[in-house]
């Protein structure tokens, strides 16, 4: 999960290690000025000039990403450096080089697909800067493959390839978002936990599981007021209790959690854990001095007055379905069954859920 680092809106969705990439965009006017001063600029034509500017923009962003990754992921940092230099070099060459189109198409295709593979594999988080950078690259790709001559076949091919590239890139990025707790933003740890803090967090998880074990039977939960709030046909279902919501709700009360999470199995729902939800957005949850890293909020949930419910998640490019709008959930914390492989406060392990559904756990 990306850390909720500033709570200031515009840059909230950009990972901390990507902020320099966004800042590098401020150099774009200088890059455009440089390109404008090249002898080949006047004769290049509007489209090549625009492609050169877009390549310069993505090149600057990639170069800006180098310092943020250098210490922890030197290989990724090296890839960003090479990619950034190639983009910047090509932005200059695009103005005069005869073979700029295949070169740009190849570089853009490989970059967009490599990004998709990186995020889908979990090696990188999808953030707002990633979405906007891909949008810039897709625009450059579209302008590059667009034919200069007339012909329905050429134009249809160019349009189809741009659409396919946007869809494939978007789908892979969406895979990365789903993998990364559906694009949730995590709370910054409040401190450096001591052994006592860790012990307290462990005891809270143990007590919570002990107190909610009566809800292992979903009919008991329903009788207590818990109702399914997500699609019941899904692999996991969230149940919520409206009596425990509102401003006067119980806060982190193991006997009265706001939500329960079940896995759908052939034998009926199997309790996986609970969900504590705070009343107000932006509120800090008790993380036992940083020992619990699970507090998060979902800023990318789309709801629709048409379906009267959740209608999806923001795409990697930041859009909701039609007739829907994005909302930010209030902070929440999951406490899972003690045998969850990632720990009681960790990210829910899909393979573990599948084993439960198969009756192997």
């Amino acid at each position: 999960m990306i850390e909720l680092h500033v709570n200031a809106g515009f840059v909230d969705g950009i990972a901390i290690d990507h902020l320099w990439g966004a800042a590098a965009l401020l150099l774009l006017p200088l890059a455009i000025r440089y390109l404008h001063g090249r002898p080949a600029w006047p004769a290049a034509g509007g489209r090549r000039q625009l492609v050169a500017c877009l390549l310069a923009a993505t090149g600057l962003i990639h170069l800006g990403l180098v310092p943020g990754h250098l210490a922890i992921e030197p290989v990724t940092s090296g890839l960003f450096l090479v990619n950034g230099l190639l983009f910047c070099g090509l932005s200059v060459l695009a103005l005069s080089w005869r073979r700029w189109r295949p070169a740009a198409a190849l570089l853009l295709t490989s970059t967009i697909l490599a990004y998709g593979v990186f995020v889908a594999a979990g090696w990188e988080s999808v953030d707002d800067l990633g979405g906007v950078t891909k949008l810039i690259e897709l625009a450059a790709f579209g302008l590059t493959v667009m034919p200069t001559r007339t012909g329905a076949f050429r134009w249809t091919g160019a349009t189809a390839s741009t659409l396919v590239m946007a869809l494939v890139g978007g789908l892979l990025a969406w895979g990365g978002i789903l993998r990364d707790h559906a694009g949730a933003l995590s709370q910054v740890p409040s401190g450096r936990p001591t052994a006592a803090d860790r012990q307290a967090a462990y005891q809270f998880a143990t007590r919570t599981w002990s107190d909610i074990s009566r809800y292992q039977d979903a009919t008991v939960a329903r009788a207590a007021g818990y109702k399914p709030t997500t699609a019941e046909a899904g692999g996991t279902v969230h149940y919520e209790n409206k009596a425990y919501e509102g401003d006067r709700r119980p806060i982190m009360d193991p006997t009265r959690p706001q939500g329960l999470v079940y896995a759908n199995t052939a034998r009926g729902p199997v309790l996986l854990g609970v969900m504590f939800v705070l009343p107000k957005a932006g509120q800090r949850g008790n993380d036992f001095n940083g020992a619990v890293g699970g507090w998060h909020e979902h800023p990318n949930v789309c709801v629709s007055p048409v379906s009267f419910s959740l209608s999806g998640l923001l795409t990697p490019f930041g859009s909701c379905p039609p007739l829907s709008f994005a909302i930010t959930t209030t902070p929440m914390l999951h406490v899972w069954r003690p045998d969850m492989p990632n720990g009681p406060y960790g990210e829910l392990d899909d393979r573990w859920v599948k084993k439960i559904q198969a009756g192997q756990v």
Partner: protein
Amino acid sequence: MKTAREVAFLLLVLQAAIGFLTSLGPIVLSLGGAPANAILAVLAIALSIIQVVLAALFLRGSRRAGAWLIAYEALCLSGAALAAWIHLGADDRFAPVATNLALPTLLLVLLLRLRLWSAHEDRSDRRGEHRQDTGWILGGGRARGALWHAGGGGQHIRGRELLGGDAAGGAGRRGVGGA
């Protein structure tokens, strides 16, 4: 103007692709037991298909398609502006601002400029002035004006070919793209 029309077309295609992507959430949810979301999925797909068709017609020079697209972009922009004003979610973040506010604004400006330019050309035609740039990059559409009436003669033909159109005044009479 040719580049402006190409850029507008490309941005419309990208916006349609994003529209297709937005349909996936409602599809998954409707399959998972929330069937009302199917309406949203169908709407998202239908709007994206219509947008691509209108973009192609606009590229060929259809003013009516341009007018529909202007109305659609204005609607998208007002919706996004309203959402940003109410501000319940991530509307003020970098990617949503770029996609939901900056992109429709850019498209609206491009489409309106092209429309104004086209109206200006019509006035020039009525005054008997020559067209300098047809803007019909596929060589199709309703290329009205001096070039059209001249049947693509002499120096106008060269100007038109330089701009990417065909010499005879449009594939609209011979099929898309003049092939």
